């Protein structure tokens, strides 16, 4: 077998698409966690929307461990948006790669 044949044979074996998709999503859920001010936050659209619409620059938000964390709203929002966008971009890219593998 040529190297190409080997690669195609290997990729054909990797076709448990639903399992791959589920595992990738779990990985993304992990990656969405961000530390800030000694707190741990899972960045969600709801959290971003809440912080974006708050009308005071200094605020306290409950983190994953149920601790109130003092937050600089502007700074936190920027970091949260960056993290969310980076992780979602990565998810989209990896998801498309999985779909491509499925079609081989």
């Amino acid at each position, binding site marked *: 077998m040529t190297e190409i044949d080997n690669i195609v044979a290997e990729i054909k074996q990797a076709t448990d698409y639903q*399992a*791959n998709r589920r595992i990738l999503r779990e990985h993304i859920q*992990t990656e969405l966690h961000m530390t800030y001010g*000694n707190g*741990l936050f899972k960045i969600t659209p709801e959290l971003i929307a809440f912080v974006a619409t708050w009308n005071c620059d200094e605020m306290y938000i409950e983190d994953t461990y149920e601790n109130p964390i003092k937050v600089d709203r502007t700074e936190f929002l920027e970091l949260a948006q960056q993290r969310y966008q980076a992780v979602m971009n990565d998810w989209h890219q*990896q998801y498309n*790669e999985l779909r491509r593998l499925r079609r081989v």
Partner: protein
Amino acid sequence: MTGINNIMNLEDSAESKGVVFFAHNTVDVDYVRIADLSARLVEQHLNLPITLVTDTESQPEHDYDHVVRVEYKGNNFRNDHISKEVKQWKNHGRYTAYEHSPYDNTLLIDTDYLVLDDGLLKLMELDYDYRVMENSNSSAETMPARMGQVSLPYLWATVVMFRKCPRSKMFFDLVGRIQRNWAYYRNLFMVDGTSYRNDYSFAMANIILNGYCSTSKNIIPWKMFTVVQEVVRMDTNLKDKIIVRLSDLAITIPKHNVHIMDKNFLTSEAFEEFVEEILDV
């Protein structure tokens, strides 16, 4: 430190951090070899010193930060779900991690947990006393989540992090007490089976320490990924992905930490090749 979720006392910049492995060879499995290979992954992805706790006869090859020699005491067996055979299991003494760890902040990791990303460092930045992995996402459809049919959920002692503090010491002392009085605690918590299991004793200690409450904040808030089936090979020939080849199928996973239960694979040449590939990437 007081309370379960304390967030004060941030003098942690000078605190030491490190990883502790336990590896006691059995008649079937060379756990020290697995530790040697896993240690290379830890160094690559976490860049933390590693202390190995092992018996007096083993000959580790990795250049560990410390090697702690202990005389293994215990007699335990497990049902290997892959070979379906009963095998020797030297899993006693994990509670001594607290006294054996030379670090202020310790990651206590099973050698079959392959560290392929730096996600755990994120948690070490925070203030905490101890934290244990709560959930596992499996390559199989379902995994049992309770210690027995009518018991409480268990934790995964595969990944535990702790800071040297009175509450962590109390936690590990309690795990030790549970191990020494396993028959009693096994009945108290209505555990199925008789073999001592660290996952259960850590869960029991956590439940007791949290006022006999099974919901706790001493957990790592994401899921560990576990491969329960027989592994034939692992490849890294896709960017940012790993292909885990099982006997009848393969799964493609992101390059993240993975718990491999197949000890035969972890002691094989194929695993060593995988580690070499990862380190070359």
